[in-house]
């Protein structure tokens, strides 16, 4: 896109994003306590390390390093062979040690880039500055009206990868697309569970506007956005707010802001004057991370294909662009292996059919069940059996698409698959009547009952044929082969 298409009232907005990704590990970044704080009572996932007791020492979780290394490949780069941890000091009750262990000078990822899909379908490359490992702090809550705060350290020590983009985005749409693409990639590469509801990914957007495209304006940083929509809204709000201030002749203050969803606006939290001197220095308790060439090669070979590879692959198979995006999301929030059956479908028709079934049948079904806490687990083998079996019946004209849907829903949710799909479908009354004589008697019955429609057909009104086919389907309780029914109707009326 040309730069001037980005202009808002003559100002060029510029956006950089920092994203905290919670790594998928069994335990915390520097200890043996569980990393899964979902539903846990406050302060139950806490030991001497998380609590910052005297004598407690951090021991690096190798699984977290592995996830971060995977992330490097998801960001189109390789992990640094040498990186190390630093301490970042500040006092807050949810920071037990008085410092956060982070990577300041030598992060595990330097550089990288991701392509984002723009509104017009073209792609744009956004460069990554760096990504570093760090531990999360605990959670503070401040009960309304209380003269106290509560601290829950369950989350303290949770492994995070903070990914920092270059300020190369120029619209809320690009910011949202970047966040979304990052979300896809972190899941595809098995870096994170990327559950936004659980805060597995939190976005900070740095927004500035400038009349001079060569020079960045003063930026604000809106922190802790946990949805793509809020990223988009916060960026749009900041662009508008900053332009309004500048138009009124006021200066932009460099500050940290928060998004208030109730009010659909950002509010100031902390200005730069309050900025800490964090007194970073290398953490002497943690030896540097040294990754061998063999290790990096091993990680590289373990990272599966990224979304852009899937876009190319599914596009080449003839799947439409919008459908592909829905399928990629399904791979993230429904099932990592859900796309494999499309590639293995075997024919162009089946590719489209399977893509359609995933988007319109399996995804809604599984999301609904998950919401009802009745999540169903579909193995790739089961999916292949069900999809292939149902496809065969359709290809043999034995199943209508409506009945196919019912059959798929049923077979994906049952524990044991029937040995004979056709017999099972038959017993359920799903099999299409393809016996001409049986259909012919139903057709005759329908023609007798609808003389007006017959006349209409005879007068060349094609719509009436559709009506009559519908009636046949109704009488046959959906089992009649509609193509055959139409053929017989035409034959009998002629």
């Amino acid at each position: 896109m040309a730069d001037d298409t980005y202009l808002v009232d003559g100002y060029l907005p510029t956006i950089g994003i920092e994203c905290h990704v919670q790594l998928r590990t069994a335990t915390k970044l520097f200890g043996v306590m569980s990393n899964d704080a979902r539903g846990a009572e406050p302060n139950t996932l806490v030991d001497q390390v998380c609590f910052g007791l005297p004598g407690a020492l951090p021991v690096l979780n190798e699984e977290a390093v592995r996830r971060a290394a995977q992330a490097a490949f998801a960001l189109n780069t390789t992990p640094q062979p040498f990186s190390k941890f630093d301490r970042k000091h500040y006092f807050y009750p949810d920071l037990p040690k008085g410092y956060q262990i982070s990577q300041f000078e030598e992060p595990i990822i330097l550089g990288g880039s991701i392509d984002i899909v723009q509104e017009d379908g073209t792609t744009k490359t956004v460069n990554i500055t760096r990504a570093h490992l760090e531990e999360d702090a605990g959670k503070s809550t401040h009960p309304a009206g209380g003269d106290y705060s509560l601290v829950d350290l369950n989350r303290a020590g949770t492994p995070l990868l903070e990914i920092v983009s270059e300020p190369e985005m120029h619209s809320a749409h690009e910011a949202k697309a970047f966040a979304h693409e990052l979300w896809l990639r972190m899941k595809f590469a098995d870096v994170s569970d990327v559950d936004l509801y659980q805060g597995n990914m939190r976005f900070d957007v740095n927004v500035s506007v400038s009349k001079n495209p060569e020079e960045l304006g003063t930026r604000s940083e809106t922190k802790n956005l946990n949805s793509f929509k809020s990223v988009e809204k916060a960026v749009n709000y900041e662009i508008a707010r900053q332009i309004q201030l500048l138009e009124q002749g006021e200066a932009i203050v460099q500050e940290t802001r928060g998004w208030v969803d109730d009010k659909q606006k950002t509010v100031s939290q902390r200005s730069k004057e309050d900025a800490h001197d964090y007194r970073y220095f290398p953490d002497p308790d943690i030896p540097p991370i040294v990754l061998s060439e063999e290790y990096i090669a091993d990680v590289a070979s373990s990272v599966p294909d990224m979304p852009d590879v899937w876009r190319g692959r599914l596009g080449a198979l003839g799947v439409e662009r919008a459908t592909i995006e829905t399928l990629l999301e399904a791979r993230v929030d429904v099932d990592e292996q859900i796309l494999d059956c499309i590639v293995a479908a075997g024919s162009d028709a089946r590719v489209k059919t399977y893509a359609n079934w995933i988007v319109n049948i399996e995804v809604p079904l599984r999301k609904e069940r998950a919401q009802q806490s009745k999540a169903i687990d579909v193995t790739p083998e089961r999916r292949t059996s069900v999809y292939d079996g149902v496809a065969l019946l359709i290809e043999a004209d034995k199943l209508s698409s409506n009945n196919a849907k019912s059959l798929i829903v049923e077979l994906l949710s049952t524990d044991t698959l029937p040995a004979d799909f056709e017999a099972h479908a038959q017993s359920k009354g799903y099999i299409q009547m393809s016996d001409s004589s049986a259909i012919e008697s139903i057709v005759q019955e329908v023609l007798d009952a609808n003389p007006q429609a017959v006349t209409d057909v005879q007068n060349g009104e094609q719509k009436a044929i559709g009506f009559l086919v519908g009636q046949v389907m109704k009488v046959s309780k959906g089992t009649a082969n509609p193509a055959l029914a139409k053929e017989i109707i035409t034959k009998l009326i002629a």
Partner: protein
Amino acid sequence: MPTAKPTDDNLVSRAWPCVTDIAAEAASGTVTATENVKKALQIIADKNPDIQAIITTTEERALQRALAIDAAIKNGESAGRLAGVPFIAKDNMLAFGADTTAASNMLAGFDAPYQATVIERLEAEGAICVAKANLDAFAHGASTENSDFGVTKNPHDTSTVAGGSSGGSAASVAAGMAPFALGTDTGGSIRQPASFCGVVGYKPTYGLNSRFGVVAMASSTDTIGVLAQSIDDVAIVNDVISGVDPSDGTTINRDTVTYTDYSTSLKGKKIGVIKEYFPKELDPVVAQDVSRHIDKLTELGAEITEVTLPSVAAALATYYIIVPAEVSSNLARHDGQRFQFSAETPSSLQDSYVRSRSEGFGAEAKRRIMMGAHVLSSGYYDAYYNKALLVRTKLIQEFDAVLQDVDFLIGPVAPNPAFKIGENEDPVSMYLQDILTVSVNLTGMPAVSLPLGTTPDGLPIGTQLMAQRNDDRALFGAAQALMEASA
């Protein structure tokens, strides 16, 4: 202050058989674990009012453990290599049975919910912790005067200091309260009090002994070591406590050979006398004594050579940048919010932080926190902390180069014998006590202080032997040879 003459009353130079004999006697039932623990507690009860080496005993738990060990032995079970051997732990090590205070009001009353790895490993071999030893608060000091629980006195002359910061550990062993004690050495805190009190003090290779469960002073130089009456006792204790600990990521592999299995032959060995360890400020009595022992090494067949390590001159300055930096960070967790000292009725969160830390820490901790925060602060980091790291690297390179040519290094431990209580009130003069010990903390090398001499007044003088990283076992051999020759 009353000046006690050097008196044998405070010294039980051999109150205990060697550690292996104590364990053997306990295993055979000749002298039970319970008898050992009672004996240790009795000596503590008798002497501690004068010496103040102990903050608290772990009497109840120690007697329970002794009973259990004796019962196990009666049942024919193996009770471990250190069965029934009492020991004393510096009170910056988390242990059950008594509070862990680090000798600071900040941590007073802290009932540790877990034990230090070194304590766990000793207990697993049947050793019994009987008491927690006094120290300079948070191990900040070289005299054990900076304790919120009283000044430890030197058993050789109670008007003098025991040294520090492991002064309680050194004095307790010198006074025969237990056959060995654990200490920590960040800049000389085991070797210097060992020198003052006339016991063997061993600082291991950095990372050899786990720091897990030890109140951190400076993470990159903290080591956990042993104070005892003999090299053999030090070696067997080290054999039990050393090696990789999954709870401390900086621990290293131990020697594959038992630490007691060392060679005392010095024939053909080269020993370097560090020129910079004999500065003009060195007390001539100390210089003469150490030189006498260097001559002994020649008699043992070793080749003596003078070596020069120019960066040693900058070691103390380097140490007093790096260590306060780490101290300021490690002490940040003592914030009054989660455990132990917390200011009463704070008006705000900020007030709670400021007052808890202002009231809880002593002057020396605050001084080091301020120095550390300063050298790490933006604008000063490059001028101080980064420069100190460069000097540290240079120091390591110089030591490594010299140790290509020589097997061991030798020099004094401290610039002087034990000084009078109250004599070094100026912080800088106290810091100068560390001048001959900090280098090996910065380089990670092992070193021992050996009680080889005395002043005309009867105060002990230690001699320091140093070796390359991971040469701890060889160091024990050389130390033992020198101990025997100088006996």
